[in-house]
């Protein structure tokens, strides 16, 4: 198993190589990338920041939990932080297992848990020159004055 917060481009193929071995007949790779629109606004890039030590700890815990929950799965996960342009990968998760159902389930579990609890934030940069922090789940950018849980 492998997990890391990185400040360089993610090499998804290397994560797949890390998890694959002769006993694994199925590999599922998830890649999350910066897309050009969110909530109807034209996005030019996203700036990811993290509470880095805690993010590394949470990501490692998610991977360890998943390997216990889906026995036999091999996992490798990297989340990138810093400024990412359109199309660049913010996260890649490679999950390998002898059987495909567990590879899919473990992959999905890791991305959902990552979005739920790893302390990483993103600020979208828009075509009109503005930028705003995004609060997951709300589907809306947060106002600077009263963010998050109070909304």
């Amino acid at each position, binding site marked *: 198993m492998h997990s890391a917060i990185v400040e360089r481009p993610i090499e998804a193929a290397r994560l797949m190589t890390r998890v694959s071995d002769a006993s694994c007949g199925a590999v599922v790779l998830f890649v999350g990338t910066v897309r050009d629109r969110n909530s109807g606004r034209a996005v030019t890039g996203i700036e990811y920041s993290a*509470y880095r030590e805690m993010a590394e700890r949470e990501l490692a815990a998610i991977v360890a939990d998943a390997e216990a929950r889906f026995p036999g799965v091999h996992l490798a996960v990297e989340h990138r932080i810093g400024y990412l342009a359109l199309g660049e990968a913010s996260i890649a998760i490679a999950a390998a297992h002898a059987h495909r159902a567990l590879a899919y389930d473990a992959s999905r579990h890791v991305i959902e848990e990552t*979005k739920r609890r790893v302390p990483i934030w993103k600020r979208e940069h828009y075509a009109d020159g503005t930028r705003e*922090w995004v609060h*997951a789940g709300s589907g809306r950018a947060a106002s*600077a*004055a*009263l963010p998050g849980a109070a909304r």
Partner: protein
Amino acid sequence: MTVRVLLFASYADAVGAAEIHVDVPDGTTVRDLVAAVRARHGPDRLPPAPMVAVNQRYASHDTSVSAGDEIAIIPPVAGG
């Protein structure tokens, strides 16, 4: 005692600092600490019950805080 509090992302922007130091009585809880930060920096800067981590683990608002702890007030996460 003086407690070091880390702020991130929109909360750091709202308060205008990524790290602050807050004076609180010994044995204070996360709840009291958040109230002290809001009283000092303005109640419109942080929600009344944000997520908080103590020593890099999510903690309930009843958790007691010690002087050496690393406290972080955590906006809704948006990784992935």
